[in-house]
C-alpha cells in the first residue's frame, strides 16, 4: 500500500518483524522490574482499602456515606460517570480509528482497550455499591415477579443504563480478547517453560494464523468496529439521559448527550496519555509509542476539550436565554454558590488548560502532556461532581436545600477504585502483550523508519534519472 515518504514513521528504530516480537514479548518473558513492583504494591494497598470501605458500606449500609435526602447522589455516581467516560477512549481508538483506517492506532489500541475494560469494571462497582443492597443486583434485570420485583420499567433511563453498560462491557471484552488471540499465539510459540506453553496455549485458543482465519479475523474486527462505534456513542448518551430526562434544573438539558460523549472521549484520551506515558517508559516502548502518537492524541484532546468548553458556555447562555428563573438560578449558583470552587476547578482544567495544546512544542512534550492529562481528568471528575451535586443541593423548594460532604468511606471507595484499576492494568502490562504486535507488523513495510528511508532513496534515484 502506498504511503508518502515524508509522512512521519510510526515505528522507529529500524525494527524488523522479529524485533517487534522480541520487544513486545520481553516484559512478559522477563522478570518484573522494581518500578512495576512498587506500583503494584501501592495499587494492591489501595485495592485492599477499597475492600475495607466496600465491606463497611455493605455491612453498615449507605448511611456510612455523606449523601442525604437532598443530595442523594454524590461521589458514587460522580465516580461511575467518570469511569464510564474514561472507558470510551479505548473503544474510540480501536473502533472509530479502525473505520477511518488510522494506522497510528495500532501501537496504542491494545492498552487503550484494556483501559476500557478495567474502567468499566470500576464503574460497575459504583453501580453495585450505590444500590445499597448489592446482593440483589439481579433486580436490575428483566426477571419475572417470583424473583422479588415487578418487571423492570423499560421507560426508565436507569434500565437503559443496565442494558447499555452490560452490552458495552461484554462487547468490548470480546473485541479485546479476539484481538489478543493471535498475540497469545506468538507468546505460546516462543515459550521456553512448560507453564508458559500451557497457559498461553490455553489463552491462544489454538490459533494458527492460516489465511482463512485471518480473513475471518479481519472481517470480524471490521464489523465489531462498525457496531462498537454506535454502541459507544449510545452508552454515554444513555448515561447522560439518567440526568437529562429528569426535571431538575441543571440536569433537564437536551445538550447533555453530545456534551457527555465529547467529555467522555476527552477524559478517556487523557487517561490513555497518563497510562501510555508510564507504560512506554517502564517497558521501554519509546520506539512504538512515539511523540507522534502523543501528538495525535493531544489533538483529539484539544478538539474534544473545545467541544466541552463550548457546551459549558452554551448551557450557561441557554439558561439565561430560556427565561426560566429556576434554570438561570441553577447556573448562577453553580458558578457563584456554595460549590463555586468545584465549578472554577472544572472550568480551569477542562476549558482553559487543553487550549495550551494549540502550541506544537507543548503537544509533543511528554512531561507536559503527562501533567496536563492528569489535570484534564481532575477537571472531568469535577464536571460530574458539579453537574450532580450543585444541581441537587438547590432544587425547587427551600426545603430541598442542603449541602453534601463525602465521608471517608466514600473517599476510600474512590481511591480504592483507582487501586482496582491500576492493579488490573499492571497485571495486564505484566502478562499480556501490551501492543497488538500481529496488527503492528502489517505496517513495517510502509510506516517503519527503514521503509521511509528506502522510499525516500527510491524517490531520489528516480528523480536523478530525469
Amino acid at each position, binding site marked *: 500500500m502506498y504511503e508518502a515518504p515524508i509522512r512521519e514513521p510510526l515505528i522507529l528504530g529500524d525494527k524488523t518483524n522479529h524485533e517487534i516480537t522480541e520487544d513486545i514479548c520481553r516484559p512478559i518473558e522477563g522478570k518484573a522490574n522494581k518500578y512495576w513492583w512498587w506500583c503494584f504494591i501501592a495499587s494492591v494497598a489501595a485495592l485492599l482499602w477499597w475492600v475495607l470501605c466496600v465491606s463497611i458500606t455493605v455491612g453498615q449500609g449507605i448511611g456510612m456515606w455523606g449523601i442525604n435526602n437532598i443530595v442523594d447522589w454524590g461521589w458514587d455516581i460522580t465516580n461511575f460517570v467518570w469511569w464510564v467516560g474514561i472507558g470510551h477512549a479505548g473503544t474510540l481508538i480501536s473502533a472509530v480509528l479502525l473505520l477511518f483506517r488510522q494506522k497510528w492506532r495500532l501501537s496504542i489500541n491494545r492498552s487503550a482497550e484494556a483501559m476500557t475494560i478495567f474502567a468499566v469494571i470500576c464503574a460497575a462497582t459504583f453501580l453495585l455499591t450505590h444500590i445499597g443492597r448489592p446482593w440483589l443486583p439481579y433486580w436490575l434485570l428483566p426477571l419475572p415477579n417470583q424473583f422479588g420485583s415487578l418487571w423492570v420499567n423499560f421507560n426508565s433511563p436507569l434500565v437503559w443504563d443496565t442494558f447499555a453498560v452490560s452490552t458495552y462491557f461484554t462487547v468490548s471484552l470480546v473485541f479485546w480478547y479476539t484481538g489478543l488471540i493471535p498475540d497469545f499465539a506468538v507468546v505460546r510459540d516462543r515459550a521456553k517453560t512448560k507453564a508458559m506453553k500451557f497457559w498461553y496455549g490455553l489463552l491462544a485458543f489454538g490459533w494458527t494464523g492460516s489465511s482463512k482465519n485471518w480473513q*475471518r479475523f479481519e472481517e470480524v474486527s471490521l464489523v465489531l468496529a462498525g457496531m462498537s462505534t454506535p454502541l459507544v456513542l449510545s452508552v454515554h448518551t444513555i448515561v447522560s439521559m439518567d440526568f437529562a430526562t429528569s426535571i431538575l434544573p441543571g440536569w433537564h438539558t437536551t445538550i447533555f448527550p453530545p456534551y457527555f460523549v465529547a467529555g467522555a472521549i476527552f477524559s478517556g484520551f487523557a487517561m490513555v496519555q497518563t497510562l501510555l506515558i508510564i507504560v512506554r517508559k517502564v517497558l521501554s516502548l519509546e520506539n512504538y509509542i512515539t511523540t507522534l502518537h502523543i501528538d495525535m492524541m493531544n489533538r483529539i484532546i484539544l478538539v474534544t476539550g473545545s467541544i466541552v468548553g463550548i457546551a459549558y458556555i452554551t448551557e450557561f447562555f441557554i439558561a439565561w436565554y430560556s427565561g426560566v428563573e429556576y434554570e438561570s438560578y441553577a447556573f448562577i449558583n453553580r458558578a457563584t454558590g456554595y460549590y463555586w470552587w468545584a465549578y472554577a476547578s472544572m472550568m480551569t482544567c477542562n476549558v482553559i488548560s487543553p487550549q495550551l495544546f494549540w502550541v506544537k512544542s507543548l503537544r509533543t512534550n511528554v512531561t507536559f502532556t503527562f501533567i496536563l492529562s492528569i489535570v484534564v481528568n481532575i477537571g472531568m471528575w469535577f464536571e460530574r461532581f458539579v453537574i450532580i451535586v450543585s444541581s441537587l443541593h438547590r432544587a425547587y423548594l427551600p426545603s430541598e436545600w442542603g449541602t453534601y460532604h463525602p465521608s471517608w468511606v466514600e473517599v476510600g471507595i474512590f481511591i480504592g477504585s483507582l487501586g482496582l484499576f491500576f492493579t488490573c492494568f499492571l497485571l495486564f502490562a505484566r502478562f499480556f502483550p501490551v501492543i497488538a504486535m500481529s496488527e503492528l507488523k502489517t505496517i513495517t513495510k510502509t510506516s517503519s523508519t527503514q521503509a521511509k528511508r528506502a522510499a525516500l532513496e527510491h524517490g531520489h534515484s528516480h528523480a536523478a534519472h530525469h
Partner: protein
Amino acid sequence: MSKYIFAIYNDEDVLMQNIKPLRNNGVRIKEVFSPFPVHGMDQIIGHKRTRISICAFIYGIIGCCLALIMTNYMMITDWPMDIGGKPSFAFYKNLPAFVPVIFESTIFCAAHGMVITFYLRSKTLPGVTAFVPDTRMTDDKFVMQVECNDNSKKAELTALLMKHGAEEVKEYGK
C-alpha cells in the same frame, strides 16, 4: 488423508508472487500461515469470501426481534404500568422509550453471535491444540502448506519450492 510438506518464506510478497507459478507447475497449495493478516492472500489462495458479516446481520435481527417481543410482553401485555400519569397501554406509543433497550439488544446479539460463530468456524476455542508447522510462523516467517502424497517426489517438490523463493522446506513436527 493427504500428507503435507511446509515451505518457509521470509517475505510475504515473495510468497504471494510465487503461488501462481507454483500452481502452474502442478503444486497443490492448501493454506498459508502468516504472523499477520496479508492483504489479498485469501483471494490468491482461492478462499471464498467469508459470510460471517451476513451471520452478524441475522443475529442482529434476531436480537432486535427478541427485544421487541420482550418489551411488548413485559410492559404492554403482562403488567402495564402507569408511571407518572403516562400509562403504557399501547406498544406503538411506548416504542420510543424502548428504542435504547432494543438497540442495545440488537448489538449484543449481533456482536456475540458473530464472535461465537468466528470461534467455532475457525476452531479457535479453549483447549484446542494449535496446528504449528513451524514455531516462527507467528513471529516473522510465512509458511506454505503444500500437498505431497508421493514420498518419492518429495525431493523434486522441495527443489521446486526452493527455486520459487522458499528458504527452507520441512515436514510437520521436524
